[in-house]
């Protein structure tokens, strides 16, 4: 080697050594693959706020979002190991646990979110008796909410499953007379179908549990700091929505990326509550019972609701996050 070459090599090695800390600190960013559903930006508002305001980045987390037609589809991919975190309905989570899936619920994220939209000729619950109501899938929380609605009003309807994006067309054609699905799809339906209205904007159980956030047990046990960071970012998102609702709606509308997004979001926000991180126990139990009765779950692996909460719900990350965020004020 010539002298010139030797100096070049030495310089290169020095640069590499100096670069190591930079690389090391860059590697401190963890990537989390997060699964959610189509048209659910409002329901998972805290997540979107956290992305937009950089709350995840502050925790050293980069999120990669994967979207699915409904909760059960999201969980199918989760079971394969394709996702690290999932946001979906309580129903799908209970069903998955019943079939041997493993995860940790770190936070609840949505309450309500079970609006029933009906065609103009359906004026009251009894008008729906014997008719067809569309849901995003047999395994969704909304299908279960429909069952509870039937029970409450003493009616019987035919549950018609379809892709969430097809429900609007089906209601318009009269193929179904009602649709029970998540926001903002329900709002879209009300605006798109002439004469359609919210027959039941709120679920039969007030403040009913709807959607949760899970992290894989592997991360919860192996990388608890990541689980904590993820939870904290979501919590920040919730606080932001609480304090700056209008700004939050604007951010969510931007994420929705559809025409009239802000109007849809405003129409939809009354049907969902996204600022409470704790699961509502009464409605959760009722949901569990309903799933058991309709044979969607069995007690083979999960012995009861208490067994479920013991094994699958872990508020420790939430508690630590709340502790560390005492006095934290969200900046607009």
């Amino acid at each position, binding site marked *: 080697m010539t002298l010139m070459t030797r100096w070049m090599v030495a310089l290169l090695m020095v640069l590499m050594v100096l670069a190591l800390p930079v690389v090391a600190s860059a590697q401190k960013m963890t990537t989390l693959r997060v699964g959610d559903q189509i048209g659910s930006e409002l329901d998972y508002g805290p997540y979107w706020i956290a992305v937009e305001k950089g709350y995840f980045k502050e925790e050293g987390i980069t999120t990669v979002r994967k979207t699915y037609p*409904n909760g*059960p*589809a999201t*969980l*199918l991919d989760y*079971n394969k190991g394709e996702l690290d975190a999932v946001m979906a309905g309580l129903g*799908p989570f209970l*069903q*998955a646990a019943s*079939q*041997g*899936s493993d995860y940790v619920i770190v936070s609840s994220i949505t309450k309500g979110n079970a609006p029933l939209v009906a065609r103009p000729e359906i004026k009251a619950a009894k008008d729906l008796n014997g008719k067809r109501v569309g849901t995003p*899938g*047999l*395994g*969704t929380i909304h299908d279960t909410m429909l069952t509870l609605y039937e029970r409450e009003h003493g009616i019987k309807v*035919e*549950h*018609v*499953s*379809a*892709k969430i994006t*097809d429900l609007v*067309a*089906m209601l318009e*054609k*009269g*193929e179904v007379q009602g649709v029970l699905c998540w926001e903002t799809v329900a709002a879209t339906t009300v605006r798109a179908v002439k004469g359609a209205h919210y027959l039941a904007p709120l679920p039969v159980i007030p403040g009913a549990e709807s959607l949760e956030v899970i992290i894989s047990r592997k991360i919860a046990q192996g990388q608890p700091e990541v689980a904590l960071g993820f939870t904290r970012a979501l919590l920040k998102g919730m606080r932001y929505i609480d304090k700056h609702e209008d700004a939050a709606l604007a951010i969510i509308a931007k994420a929705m990326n559809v025409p009239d997004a802000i109007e849809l979001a405003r129409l939809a926000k009354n049907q969902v509550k996204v600022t409470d991180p704790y699961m509502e126990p009464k409605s959760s139990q009722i949901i569990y019972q309903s799933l058991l009765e*309709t*044979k*969607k*779950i069995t007690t083979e692996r999960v012995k009861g609701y208490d067994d479920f909460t013991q094994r699958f719900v872990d508020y420790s990350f939430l508690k630590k996050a709340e502790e560390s965020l005492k006095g934290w004020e969200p900046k607009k």
Partner: protein
Amino acid sequence: MGAEEVADVLGVATAAPVPREAGRRRSLRVLLHNAAAALAVLAAWQAATFIVHSVFFPSPWQVARAFVDLALNGDVAGHTLLTHMAWSMARLAAGFLMGVVLGVPLGLLMGLYRPLYAGTRAALEPFRFIPPIAWIPLTIVLLSGFPRYVFLIWLGAFFPIFVATLVGVPRVEPIHKNVAKVHGAGRWYILRKVVVPSVLPDILGGMRVGMGTAWMTIVAAEMSGGETTGLGRMMVNYAELIRIPEIVVGMILIGVLGFAMNELLLRIERRLFRWRWEVTL
């Protein structure tokens, strides 16, 4: 002079019918072989569950249990297994029948009047290459319920039947037509008594292919939503509940029913075409 030549000179038929007992013995042997093959598949499946060892890979035993439960108690939504099967088959039958009713006459027409075919080819052929599944989003918006399925099935069945008929017509032996012509037959007679019998094997071959495509379409169509019954729908419902054994039950039933229908068509073919000694697959 060998036996064959003697037979030829005397003009005696050389094809001897198979004696009954030998035939029965052979079909018994075939049955036993098939049973052994099925058992081998089951054994491999069971072995695979030991290797893969996932909660989501069911064993033959789990699937069998799920089948019994479904057969006796119906599914989660309250429909019996028979209901699901009957609905899938009914949709298939309706669409398939439409495929035959439209495909055969159109194929004959286009086959006999080449200019008609040549003149419409560019406009119509591209449709053949759109898989029925690609039509599903459009049909969800434009059609509802039973007609939607019939249309999708018809798409799957029509083209194979139409093309098989179309292609078979020019392959009718001119000498067969000449026999009729010499004796003074008109076009209608030749169509009914020469063209159709000649093309019938091709038509039935096309029907079997069409049946296969149609059956696969019905499953995809039912999965896409809108109806509460059907094997495809049943499978998706259980997929939502992450109940894999029931999904596998659905798959097996779909395979068995498809196989049964294919066999039925094959039997019909064999009966109708006793005059051919080539075996069709």
